[in-house]
């Protein structure tokens, strides 16, 4: 299983790269444009949930795991002890993410916030 790792400052300009990287990786895996666009929207939604707005100082560490037709993206926030907003997804965000990706979750483990999503390639390109 191939992995791509990325550590970004938690600012909107850099978090854009999380989306760009997801597009690049998904494209390599043969995802369709529809699926790539879904993935980009999901990354935006979960990065926002992870950092809040404006994001606290710190970094977001992303891991893209390529497993056959399945792409898993994990994001971990390192906010240097700064308090983050409670990690919750609104009902609407839940609904949106359910439509965009196959699995998603937002976690907080020992005060470290993270998200995980899985997007499976549906089409046979």
């Amino acid at each position, binding site marked *: 299983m191939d992995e791509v790792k990325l550590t970004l400052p938690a600012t909107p300009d850099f978090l854009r790269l999380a989306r*760009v990287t997801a597009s690049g990786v998904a*494209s390599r895996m*043969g*995802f*369709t*444009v529809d699926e*790539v666009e879904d993935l980009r929207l999901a990354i935006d939604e979960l990065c926002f949930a992870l950092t809040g707005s404006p994001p606290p100082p710190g970094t977001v560490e992303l891991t893209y795991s390529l497993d056959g037709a399945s792409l898993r993206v994990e994001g971990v926030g390192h906010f240097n002890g700064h308090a983050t907003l409670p990690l919750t997804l609104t009902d609407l965000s839940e609904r949106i993410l359910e*439509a965009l990706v196959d699995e998603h979750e937002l976690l907080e483990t020992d005060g470290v916030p993270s998200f995980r999503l899985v997007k499976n390639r549906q*089409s046979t*390109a």
Partner: protein
Amino acid sequence: MLAEFAESRDASLRDRVVEAHLGLAEYLARRFSNRGEPLDDLVQVASVGLIKAVDRFDPSREVEFSTYATHTIVGELKRHFRDKGWSVRAPRRMQELYLRLGNVISVLSQELGRSPTVPELATEAGVSEEEVLEALEAGQAYRSTSIDAPGSAGARAAGEEGDTLASHLGGLDPELVEAERRAELSPLIASLPEREQTILYMRFFEGLTQSEIATRLDISQMHVSRLLARSLEQLREASLGD
């Protein structure tokens, strides 16, 4: 009629002149319709150009109105693509590729019966996969102009009511849509323009893909993508205020 309007500046006369030449606006809008923008939007832009032409035309000059109006309308359409469409300046090469990809996606989707992949797009467009990805990302900086707003000046000027939910729902059962909307759409969504509510509903409540929505609404997949991204961003911003 033009000479009479130039003399009197009567509003009802102006409307009649505009209506009499809407065919020209539509004809010119169609000439720009292969650049990834919905024809309806381009017709609205062209109509604004037509109104400007009517207002500015000087019958004492020896120029045919159709010649003058064509020049003004084409200028308005070009300005729409060059200036109004891009909220952040992307390199012109990427702008052009992005607009071109809109057509390529439509053609390939029809040929393949599914949404194309990035490598397929790159091959068809004769560019690298990286360029396709760069153009798609640059597309996020491409915003729909005010003509997306319901009841915009352009729509009113063209004698239309602007976008309405009903005009975009096609074969959906309106009663079902309304019931679902009442039950499920949050007040945040209800605050969005109706076209964007429609697209959100189709994508997240009805489960249609972006390509399917594009087909149903007769707009490009890339336009759907832009509107969805913008809507979700607006919803996130609005949620902060809750």
